[in-house]
């Protein structure tokens, strides 16, 4: 059975702090891993990772994948209150097109 575990479950930081969110996974014939940000409603796409060791970066957010150790991390530097959200990790197994979502990490950034 496919499994995705995200940690921590929740996190409270102050503006300007750097955070690291973790995602470990066990899925059959792994193909890719996606990160999403969920504020009030829909998950918003952040990154897709397919290769180990290659960092994806977008502004203050970056992410990397380790296919050997079966995990990914999402880093956010110089956090802002607008980063407050649930961050979802979703690997894609190789036998179909579905994404398997973790429970998410709730990030709250205090001003």
């Amino acid at each position, binding site marked *: 059975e496919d499994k995705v575990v995200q940690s921590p479950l929740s996190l409270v930081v102050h503006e300007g702090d750097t955070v690291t969110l973790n995602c470990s996974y066990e899925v059959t014939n792994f193909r*890719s891993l*996606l990160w*999403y940000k969920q504020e009030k*409603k*829909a*998950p*918003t*796409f952040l990154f*897709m990772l397919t290769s180990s060791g290659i960092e994806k970066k977008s502004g203050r957010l970056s992410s990397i994948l380790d296919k050997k150790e079966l995990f990914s991390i999402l880093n956010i530097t110089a956090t802002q209150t607008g980063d407050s959200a649930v961050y*979802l990790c*979703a690997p*894609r197994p190789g036998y*179909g*097109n*579905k*994404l*398997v*979502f*973790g*429970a*998410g990490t709730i990030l709250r950034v205090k001003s």
Partner: protein
Amino acid sequence: EPEVTQTPSHQVTQMGQEVILRCVPISNHLYFYWYRQILGQKVEFLVSFYNNEISEKSEIFDDQFSVERPDGSNFTLKIRSTKLEDSAMYFCASSETPNEQFFGPGTRLTVL
């Protein structure tokens, strides 16, 4: 920027009634999906659709559920006889390739 749209944003129905949730995927996308999220729980895959047929479905997607692409733009999810446990947020998603899936804002379904 193109986005996935869904209607209605909130649907309230009585148990046993049929509901149809509507989605307009991004126009050049070929892959379509439905997911749901029960309050406080994970986002769960329901079904994927490609080339006018279901390509994959989960155990949740039983005979009470069906999907259709009735025309070139809409993608619908029908629940034939709703149960209390169908209450959830239903997300439609689409993708150009089976990779980066873009989600709509969701329809909150409340079954009374």
